[in-house]
């Protein structure tokens, strides 16, 4: 109920609010940021790509491992954090961190069993 200026202002505000309501993606983004406030500013950027490129790397260097054990003496070795795949500075993988390799030289179940 004012001059044209007020109407425009209201319309702009309304539009943004409407947009966040309409856009489920934005609502989801807000949810995510609420859960993980430290999540990178760059949306879906390099972190994912680096992780993808590094897939499969598992470093285990017995020299590093033994030296670290010697230094630590009674203390526990720093174990893998929740993100085992990311190669970070202090973490030295231990034999327990590495998953067991399973040989798969067994016939596929698709090739055996009942044909329905």
């Amino acid at each position, binding site marked *: 109920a004012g001059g044209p200026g007020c109407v425009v202002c209201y319309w702009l505000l309304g539009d943004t609010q409407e*947009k966040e309501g309409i*856009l*489920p*993606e*934005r*609502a*989801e*983004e807000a*949810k*995510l*940021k609420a*859960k993980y406030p430290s*999540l990178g500013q760059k*949306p*879906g*950027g*390099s972190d*994912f*790509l*680096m992780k*993808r*490129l590094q*897939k*499969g*790397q*598992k*470093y*285990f*260097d017995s020299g590093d491992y033994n030296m670290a054990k010697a230094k630590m003496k009674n203390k526990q070795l720093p174990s893998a954090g929740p993100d085992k795949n990311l190669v970070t500075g202090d973490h030295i993988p231990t034999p327990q961190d590495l998953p067991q*390799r*399973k*040989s*798969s*030289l*067994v*016939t*596929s*179940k*698709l*090739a055996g*069993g009942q*044909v*329905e």
Partner: protein
Amino acid sequence: MFLKFSPRAMFYGAGGGNDIQWCFSQVKGAVDDDVAEADIISTVEFNHSGELLATGDKGGRVVIFQQEQENKIQSHSRGEYNVYSTFQSHEPEFDYLKSLEIEEKINKIRWLPQKNAAQFLLSTNDKTIKLWKISERDKRPEGYNLKEEDGRFRDPTTVTTLRVPVFRPMDLMVEASPRRIFANAHTYHINSISINSDYETYLSADDLRINLWHLEITDRSFNIVDIKPANMEELTEVITAAEFHPNSCNTFVYSSSKGTIRLCDMRASALCDRHSKLFEEPEDPSNRSFFSEIISSISDVKFSHSGRYMMTRDYLSVKIWDLNMENRPVETYQVHEYLRSKLCSLYENDCIFDKFECCWNGSDSVVMTGSYNNFFRMFDRNTKRDITLEASRENNKPRTVLKPRKVCASGKRKKDEISVDSLDFNKKILHTAWHPKENIIAVATTNNLYIFQDKVN
């Protein structure tokens, strides 16, 4: 602004005309719920005639099924697919220099067109591509002079007469042997292989590079695309899929994690870093969110059989592009739009990174792709109708028409509908294949292979 088709029309299969009624035909694999990792199916591919169907799994094994010859008496259905050959294609390796574990999982299988009695296919894991020859043996030589039938050598002094060995029939044996091993050409993980229409060369693509090989030569390959930045800190996108054009042997496309597709012409230069065409749908910047780039990442790109169109699959949709129009797709189909309001949890459980594939039918009139809860979707480009079907052992009576499924996004759930929150996100259909000529489809759930056919009256 864009042409967006989101057909809501339900297709119940009772309609006349060209509507296809899909029926269960067969299911392969173990029934138990406890799935061994090795049994996870990682690729499915029909050969050029459709007679053979190959699957690859996480354990590095390939299983090939062959369609039995049509039974003239029993004309209710087309021939069934039975196991033809199975072999260990790749084995786990460890790169000691880089402390890198190399998975034996088969990422892709591509068939060569048949030139003689034997069949050839390319199979690849993350690092190594292999050319396999699959041949039949139904005769064996008998009557050697110096050898007994069991292989033991005869004492030459006991040989008093000579005879000519003859070939005698034996039970059919199908042998697979590796004929070429194309190794050590990829620093990053191979996501695609594609055989050129010249049937002499093929390409292999990893996250940052694409190489061109000759099928006869294993110690050399040409690098034709390299998007690795000088400084890895500047890395913004990776190659997600690549394919040769079905007819033009100089043309190929590759898709990226940013939702773009580049078409390259190998005649332009040796290194195709500069694209001939760039296909990208403009995004409304006000719609951008944290998830935008992730869900725009293209997980599969496939040319139509005609070569005039290409299809891309991103997390929520399938897009059809006309090669003559770069600025937007000509058709867009929503696969599971109801997931847009679940992106937060899909990011947390990593499902947002699932790589779904897509495929065309033989006449390029229908496209198919997978979803969650063992659902898969088909979009008819002509009628603009779509259907959701389920790969489940509950429907496994042959010739029973599959019942369409519907997901209820919100609000009141109708009977027979399933709500978004009840979907099982561990049951993903990532790999599907369509017979090149018939209405026969192969759909892979986690560890089972389903074969469906259209109803033959």
